């Protein structure tokens, strides 16, 4: 069995559906092939991750009145004797999938368009330096971690303010202020991304890149509240689960700091 043939069967190997002989050949290949074995293990781990989702289910009260609500809708009418829909309508209709795809392309395209247009309005280094991150007296690594944390925290506060408000006015200040903060963050991101070079920093680099697209949109908003452009920014935040990722990155950083601290404590006790 080739690598490709084996990998083509991964889904069925995970979820059943392979003939026993076929499954045995596939498993035999996995025992002798590191690459395929690793790829399969990654899929298995994704499958396990999917089990950690918990549905928010309704309580007793909902089920207690369930039938009466249905009964009131079907009334005393008997089921139709001539079924209007002998075959249910086709499950997948082109338009909605097509529209969803078009919306995604539009969103990405919009980001690219704005990305190109922001180049002329990116903040000057001096402007970026107006809000220098703190903790510059520690070692280089600590300083980078602190700058990253500060960058993520400010991005989070900015985006939370936007997604939780119906418009850009109010406690969060004017559109102009939003744009200025976005530009500062964009400027910082260039510096940060260049500094985050380690392999274990890839996730935070990706997060900053995702943030860039949203911040670029925000930096260029010149619209009335509630118009589609601000909705696009909100959708960008949702679509990329940006706030969740920032939260996870914060937890990670915290966990790293805690373990570093624990290691330092242990080292001290051994001195």
């Amino acid at each position: 069995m080739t690598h490709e043939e084996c990998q083509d069967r991964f889904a069925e190997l995970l979820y059943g559906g392979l003939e026993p002989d076929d499954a045995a050949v596939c498993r035999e290949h996995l025992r002798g092939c590191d690459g395929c074995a690793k790829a399969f293990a990654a899929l298995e781990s994704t499958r396990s991750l999917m089990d950690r989702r918990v549905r928010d289910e309704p309580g007793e009260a909902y089920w207690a009145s369930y039938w009466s609500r249905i009964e009131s809708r079907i009334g005393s009418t008997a089921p139709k004797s001539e079924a209007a829909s002998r075959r249910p309508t086709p499950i997948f209709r082109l338009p909605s999938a097509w529209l969803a795809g078009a919306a995604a392309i539009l969103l990405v395209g919009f980001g690219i368009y704005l990305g190109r247009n922001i180049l002329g309005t990116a903040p000057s280094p001096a402007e970026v330096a107006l809000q220098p991150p703190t903790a510059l007296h520690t070692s280089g690594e600590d300083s980078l971690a602190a700058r990253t944390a500060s960058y993520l925290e400010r991005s989070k506060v900015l985006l939370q303010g936007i997604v939780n408000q119906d418009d850009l006015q109010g406690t969060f200040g004017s559109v102009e202020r939003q744009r200025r903060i976005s530009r500062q963050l964009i400027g910082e991101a260039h510096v940060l991304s260049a500094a985050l070079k380690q392999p274990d920093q890839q996730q935070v680099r990706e997060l900053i890149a995702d943030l860039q697209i949203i911040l670029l949109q925000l930096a260029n908003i010149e619209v009335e509240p509630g118009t589609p452009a601000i909705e696009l920014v909100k959708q960008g935040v949702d679509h990329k689960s940006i706030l969740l990722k920032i939260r996870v990155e914060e937890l990670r950083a915290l966990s790293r700091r805690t373990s570093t601290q624990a290691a330092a404590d242990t080292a001290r006790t051994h001195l």
Partner: protein
Amino acid sequence: MTDEKELIHRAQSGDTAAFRALVERSRLHVFRLAYDMTGNRHDAEDLSQDVFVKAYRSLHAFRGDAKWSTWLYRITMNACLDHRGAASRKPMNTHEPLNDEILPSQAHAGEVTPDRAAESRILGRHIDAALGRLSNRERAVFTLRHYHDLPLKEIASALEITEGSVKSYLFRALAHLQEDLSFYRNDPGMEHAS
């Protein structure tokens, strides 16, 4: 336990008590499938009721060549996809996870330990969002296989596609989920020993 075929036959003759018995034995499955397809409890509550109203109105279309559950799953899928089409401009899982309860304001470094419950809720929301980004077919196939344990052959019947297509959508769904949730990898705190 009353025989399902007998209940269906009686319901087709207009016996609402028999239909009620069918509703009560299937309602949780239908609710959960609607939830898995919409990512939203309130939509799922409404949709699951719509499904039974539709099922009642087209009971005569049920010939018994498919399983009752498969037939209901098919109606549920139609209802969810109609709903999803109508709501396509609105992203799934809009702002619900972003409130303070789920994203408590973070204390400064070293002052708190990660809150496992909050972490778990965040992960759940992230998984829902990843499911929401799958195509309709990928999501339908993955949901029916992973969360509803339907054999590939029945999925093909419920979705009216070939078994080969089911396999390929399942693989693609898994690959997308793996990519989308890769953020959680290499993280000992999030790692799930299986």
